[in-house]
């Protein structure tokens, strides 16, 4: 630990570094809060400017933006049901219903405290357990990733409520959307209809914006003549002692999940948030309240998605394998700086590594204050009349969808996704399972194809690996969870009657 402090103290006492961390945190919250502008895009845009800085301040700036951007996305998720970034998708499930019930300030406060707790816990844990966690993630092969993907998809049966069957179908439709584009193994075009812009696949961000924001805009248009559910904005509230007691276990559990998921290569905050939400629901004494505006439904994904940012940096730095999309951009930044991420970095440059870890820790502490103050300013967005708010939101959606690749095809994808999302919503299909399917699509398909090659086309190969088997078992439990619970409760009630 002395060694860590020896390298970290010069970083923490450097005013330039602290100034950059503050700037990165503010920018992260702002960028994360704007629909369509994710922390990945923010980090990518900032990367060229960071090259004028020394490695430690540069990476500290990007890391701070990464941490704060993940929280920033939750502000608009809660206030206008338009997640600023993919990791905030699950926050909208309960954050927005809370806002419609006049508890926007409470929801934002819970989100801020949960995010900070998750972020700080992940950095603290990683400081001491990074090599061990990295080793666990490194032992995962394609079959394990496929099984993990199946497990994640199976959990769709329990999210956003009333229709497990429709959630599973939605997840599969998401997987299908992810197959659009050129197959990387064979170079064959799939569902591209000869449109060159679709060769690289359908971008995730336009689909996300369309399914959430444009669908909601259409929903608002239909609700105009009806009684309005106002998003009342009171002063932003830090959680009361009672609230904190209620969510503390959720925060701890979700932080653990976030760290674990984050450390897995290629997995990021979005999956962590989804699993964090599912687990918060599963462990809740009142799971029926989920989706209707409960604080555990906000705390679960927020703690998990921020805990995943710390986790994602471990394989990025220790193994040279990006832990998430944003971490991949940071990885590129390290390489341009002339550094060689990988196991040797721990031995050769402990100062840089611990400097980054402490920069992330500081960023998390800072955005508790900046995030709360910023959120209060952002909360004014819902005071704007709907007739002015939604054209502005649509303009941000347009810009967000376009800005990613600067392509009008992405704008069309956003519009079509919004229209399809509205039709699906009217028929009982939530947007979240589709998004989950789109996110997991590439990973599931690639890992399945690689596994089939490894196993020489024998499906039974999956059952010869203990980790894979465990994930499949969890998937089965997840799918049959409701049935198992009802059988158990019937048995219990019978036993109590007999007694």
């Amino acid at each position, binding site marked *: 630990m002395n060694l860590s402090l020896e390298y970290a103290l010069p970083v923490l006492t450097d005013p330039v570094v602290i100034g950059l961390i503050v700037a990165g945190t503010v920018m992260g919250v702002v960028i994360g809060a704007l629909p369509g502008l994710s922390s990945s895009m923010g980090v990518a845009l900032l990367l060229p400017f960071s090259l004028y800085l020394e490695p430690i301040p540069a990476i500290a700036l990007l890391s701070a933006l990464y941490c704060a951007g993940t929280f920033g996305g939750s502000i608009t998720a809660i206030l206008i049901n338009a997640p600023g970034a993919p990791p905030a998708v699950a926050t909208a499930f309960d954050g927005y219903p809370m806002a419609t019930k006049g508890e926007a300030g409470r929801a934002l406060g819970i989100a801020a405290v949960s995010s900070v707790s998750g972020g700080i816990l992940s950095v603290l844990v990683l400081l001491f357990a990074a090599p061990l966690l990295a080793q666990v993630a490194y032992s995962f092969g394609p079959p394990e990733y496929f099984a993990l993907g199946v497990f994640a998809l199976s959990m769709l049966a329990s999210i956003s409520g009333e229709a497990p*069957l429709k959630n*599973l179908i939605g997840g599969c439709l998401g997987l*299908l959307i992810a197959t659009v584009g050129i197959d990387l193994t*064979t170079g064959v075009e799939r569902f591209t209809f000869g449109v060159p812009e679709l060769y690289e696949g359908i971008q995730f961000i336009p689909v996300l914006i369309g399914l959430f924001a444009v669908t909601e*805009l259409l929903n608002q248009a239909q609700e105009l003549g009806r009684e309005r559910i106002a998003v009342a904005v009171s002063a932003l509230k830090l959680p009361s002692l009672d609230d904190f007691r209620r969510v503390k276990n959720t925060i701890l559990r979700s932080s653990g999940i976030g760290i674990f998921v984050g450390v897995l290569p290629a997995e990021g905050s979005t999956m962590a948030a989804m699993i964090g939400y599912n687990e918060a629901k599963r462990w809740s004494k009142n799971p029926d309240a989920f989706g209707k505006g409960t604080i555990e439904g906000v705390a679960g994904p927020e703690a998990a998605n921020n805990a995943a940012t710390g986790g994602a940096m471990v394989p990025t730095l220790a193994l040279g394998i990006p832990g998430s999309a944003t971490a991949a951009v940071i990885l590129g930044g390290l390489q341009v700086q002339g550094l060689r991420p990988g196991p040797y970095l721990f031995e050769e440059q402990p100062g840089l590594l611990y400097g980054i870890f402490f920069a992330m820790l500081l960023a998390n502490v800072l955005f508790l204050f900046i995030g709360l103050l910023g959120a209060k300013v952002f909360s004014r967005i819902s005071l704007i009349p709907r007739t002015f708010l939604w054209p502005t939101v649509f303009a941000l959606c347009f810009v967000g969808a376009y800005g990613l690749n600067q392509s009008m095809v992405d704008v069309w994808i956003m*519009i079509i996704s919004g229209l399809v999302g509205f039709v699906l919503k009217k028929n009982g299909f939530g947007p979240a399972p589709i998004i989950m399917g789109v996110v997991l699509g590439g990973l599931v398909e690639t890992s*399945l194809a690689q596994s089939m090659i490894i196993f020489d086309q024998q499906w039974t190969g999956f059952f010869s690996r203990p980790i894979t088997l465990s994930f499949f078992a969890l998937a089965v439990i997840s799918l049959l969870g409701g049935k198992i619970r009802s059988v158990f409760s019937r048995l219990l009630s019978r036993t109590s009657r007999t007694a």
Partner: protein
Amino acid sequence: MKHHDTITGLALLVLCAIAYWLTTGFSEVPALLSQNVPPTFFPRLVLSIVATLSVVLVAAGISREPEKTGRPSATFWRTVVIIASTGILASILGTLLTLGIVAVALPIAWGERRYSFIGILAVCLPISIYLIFTLGLNVHFPAGQIVGLLLEN
């Protein structure tokens, strides 16, 4: 009258059939190149799962009472037209002008009659986007065919 789930399930089955038919048009690749995992493998696997789940949805819908649903309002349809036309308008008039038009059309379609506020939004929104995204973040929007023609002349 059928339950919504029955109709939805049938629509999904039709979608699966069309998507499956589309997979038959994928280019053939030698087994050696695809390593025995052809490009049709995963889409067809997913489609078969969707089809199976859709059959369950149809069956579940048959046994349930039909639901009453309201028709979309005129405001809703006006909103759909405005949103859908932005993609076309942006390529003709340019993004910033199109977003200015949306800032006028959408509030009016939604019943807003405070024209001074609408005017402020229509001017401020495109300018803000230009300042933040074009100047600040280097995002360049399409100028549109009309602006292009004007610049050429």
